């Protein structure tokens, strides 16, 4: 019986490996649930390029795989700070997005971000913010738009809070609240952040970056440190879930499409990236993911629920509160890790 299985394996493996260098193929490495399958099918129909999709769940996972030499992908989707690191380390190649046909659709400030000012390496994909979502109906009150609500919670909220299990996001939130630099290299400031987080810990039910939508929609927590797209989807499931733009500041992050150094099908990658800068396609992606995009003209094609949700469509008076995400220097990351480990020991 075992011999039979062994032979079967050999036969299956001997089957031709169709990952050859035809230009009619695209190997996409994306976040899970981050691009509609229907859109990929339409791309295949329009261009004749077959798309293979592999997924990852964090920037770090994708980065680690590429840094270790793995991959062989044509398009990856890093968030801004990660892309900055990848450009610096030579992990992505120049594809001159600014010269592409659809580039004129990109609206500022996404056409010249700090991590890729000339848009030589990447095109914008989805963008979003990270802040607090709470269940207004369950609590029966409106909360202030301040990080204080999560770091020094009211009695009704304490014990029913979920924080993201992401050291960067939690650290930044604390830094915003205390008015400190999110990339601080001053140990005394890091100590203050640590103390705030330690003091908050007893009021936190759990730290988790997954399943946030279900967690707040089912009532397991009444307040969640959350991404705005997730808050939007939670609000669809349970009306009353409200997103706060804290006055002390909140992170604005953007995901980008980039091409790794050793991509086998660069032409197909460029066609795909240009395709995604078309308003119709960007709108379709937004409607699927629940996040906003950077392409002008897509607004008209967004689902009304998405367009009218202030969590996703940031109101003009809140834009000043957004702080673009930054890649911190080694010393700052080090301090952050030490604070997080001390918090979790």
């Amino acid at each position, binding site marked *: 019986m*075992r011999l039979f299985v*062994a032979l079967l394996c050999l036969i299956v*493996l001997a089957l031709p490996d169709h990952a050859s260098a035809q230009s009619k193929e695209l190997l996409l490495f994306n976040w899970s649930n981050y691009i509609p399958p229907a859109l990929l099918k339409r791309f295949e129909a329009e261009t004749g390029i077959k798309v293979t999709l592999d997924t990852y769940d964090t920037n770090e996972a994708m980065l680690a795989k590429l840094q270790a*030499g793995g991959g*062989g992908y044509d398009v990856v989707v890093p968030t801004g700070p990660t892309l900055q690191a990848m450009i610096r380390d030579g992990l992505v190649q120049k594809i001159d997005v600014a010269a592409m046909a659809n580039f004129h659709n990109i609206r500022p400030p996404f056409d010249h971000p700090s991590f890729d000012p000339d848009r030589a390496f990447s095109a914008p994909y989805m963008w979003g913010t990270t802040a607090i979502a709470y269940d207004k109906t369950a609590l029966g009150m409106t909360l202030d738009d301040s990080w204080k609500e999560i770091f020094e919670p009211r009695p009704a909220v304490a014990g029913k809070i979920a924080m993201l299990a992401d050291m960067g996001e939690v650290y930044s939130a604390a830094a915003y609240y205390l008015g400190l630099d999110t990339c601080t290299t001053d140990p005394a400031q890091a100590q203050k952040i640590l103390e705030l987080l330690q003091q908050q810990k007893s009021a936190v039910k759990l730290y988790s970056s997954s*399943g946030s939508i*279900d967690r707040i929609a089912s009532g397991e927590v009444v307040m969640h440190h959350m991404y705005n797209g997730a808050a939007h989807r939670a609000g669809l499931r349970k009306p009353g879930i409200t997103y706060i733009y804290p006055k002390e500041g909140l992170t604005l992050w953007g995901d980008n499409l980039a091409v790794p150094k050793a991509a086998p099908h660069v032409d197909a990658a460029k066609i795909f990236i240009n395709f995604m800068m078309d308003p119709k396609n960007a709108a379709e992606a937004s409607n699927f993911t629940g996040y906003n995009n950077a392409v002008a003209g897509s607004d008209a094609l967004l689902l009304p629920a998405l367009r009218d949700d202030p969590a996703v469509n940031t109101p003009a008076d809140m834009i000043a509160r957004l702080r673009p995400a930054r890649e911190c220097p080694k010393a700052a990351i080090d301090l952050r890790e030490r604070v997080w480990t001390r918090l979790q020991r």
Partner: protein
Amino acid sequence: MTGLSLWRMPGARVIGVAALLFLYLPILVLVALSFSADDSLAGWSGFSLRWYRAVFADDNMLAALRHSLVVASCAATFATASAIMAAVALDRARFRGSSTVEALLGLPLVVPEIVAGIAVLLFFVLIGFRLGLISVIVAHIVLVIPLAYLPIRARLSGLDPSLKEAAADLYAGPVACFRRITLPLIRPAIAAGFMLAFIGSLGDVVVSYFVAGPGATTLPVYVFAMVRMGVSPEVNAASTLLLLISIAVFTLSSRISRRFM
């Protein structure tokens, strides 16, 4: 031979059945939820097969499922075969270096998955090994060898040595001795080792993520990334299907083996 009357060991039955129930409790929940009409996990809102339809419409998931089964079968087979040989060689072995080899065989258990994943990837890149499904199988064989080895070793060490001596006295060569005497006696251990290796491979996420080539995603990696949004009932439906497949395989193989007994 009939089973020993269990009233002599009543505690064993209670705990045994309780243990099985414990193992199946979450399974019941997830199978039930795979039929729930609603997207949310908060409760039951009616019977529906939509998630099963979604699974069959999801090419990526089906491909991942196929990959997982192929990898697990191949890896478990090679691992169990080499584990049997190693266990026989190390049985009652007192040669120099035998404990080092035993430690080597247990090494995959100690290494944290992420370290193993990145280390093997770095190594593959260094030697120019092309990433694909084969790289996953190669890595999995390494990971599950100890899972197959330990039960077989445990069983072998409990065997009565006089049986082998008797066979040798009757002029049976070592190969015949193994085939006729040892092998039948350790058959349950081989089955157990194979099963442990199989589920070990099916369950591996981190190493599979790192060493897989494009398009060679396995099911756990696919599910892991999906779970960020929350476990959708589609994942539960896929898991239930996997359970059904396992039951089908078992029934089939026990039918076949009974035929050839």
